């Protein structure tokens, strides 16, 4: 869970920082300056007022937010099954292109990329626990051990077998 979520958190915060930077761009040749660090009227820090401002710009559509959060949870709970956009969009009563756009907008990844990350993360957990490569492959919803190994190696830098050997070794030390 941690790795995939990390990426998403970084994305959310990046967006946030981008906006902070945007705010300090010159307007009519003059930099918008934050007068003092605490707004005297509200007693809020600059960051606190930015949170409110950005929330009202980016996160005002509660319906869309519920749709993407629901989709992410559905992927989290069903990563071991065959998942595709048609199915995901059907569940959330929306068109697949709309869902794809929304998911990318809020999470910065397509549902498919997110699913792959989730599967790799689960695979690491299973391999760490000593589950063999073939079983791991099927447990995370992959059909072919060879395509699983190839993908795993490209993401993790080690084949599932090498990864498991290292994990076992680390435990024995």
């Amino acid at each position: 869970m941690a790795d995939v979520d990390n990426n998403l958190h970084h994305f959310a915060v990046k967006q946030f920082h981008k906006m902070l930077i945007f705010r300090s761009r010159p307007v009519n040749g003059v930099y918008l300056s934050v007068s003092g660090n605490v707004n005297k009227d509200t007693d809020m820090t600059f960051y606190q007022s930015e949170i409110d401002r950005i929330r009202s710009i980016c996160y005002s559509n509660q319906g869309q937010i519920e749709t993407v959060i629901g989709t992410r949870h559905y992927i989290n709970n069903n990563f071991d099954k065959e998942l595709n956009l048609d199915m995901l969009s059907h569940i959330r009563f929306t068109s697949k292109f709309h869902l794809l756009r929304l998911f990318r907008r809020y999470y910065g990844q397509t549902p498919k990329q997110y699913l792959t990350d989730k599967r790799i993360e689960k695979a690491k957990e299973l391999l760490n626990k000593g589950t063999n490569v073939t079983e791991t492959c099927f447990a995370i919803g992959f059909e072919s051990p060879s395509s699983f190994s190839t993908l795993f190696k490209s993401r993790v830098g080690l084949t599932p077998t090498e990864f498991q050997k290292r994990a076992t070794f680390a435990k024995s030390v």
Partner: protein
Amino acid sequence: MKVKIISIPVQDQEKALQFYTKKLGFVKKVDVPLSEDSRWLTVVSKEEQDGPEVLLEPVPNHFEPAKTYQKALFDAGIPYTQFNADNVQQEYERLVGLGVEFSVKPTEMGTVKIAVFNDTCGNNIQIVEML
């Protein structure tokens, strides 16, 4: 290239070590003396001890602009960096119980929930949960 370390400027390394281990629950990983008043000091997440290391760097004491930058961020309430929590509300309550001060209470921002606390070493730190 790989990402192994992120660094956080701290005003007092020993105090930081106590805060990051005793309150936040990190584990000390590397501690190398460098000079009389500085060490190469890193901590890691207890659940992910082979994950990225957090370098507690005494830079504000040795480089004036770093001190200025750190103070400006702190005064504006901007987090220096962030850590991930499985449950921000629970973590908030746990840390408040340990006397940690929060400038942002658990707050939903669309697809994430955030909170910001004072690390007592010159920084605001944000915790984030993916919703």
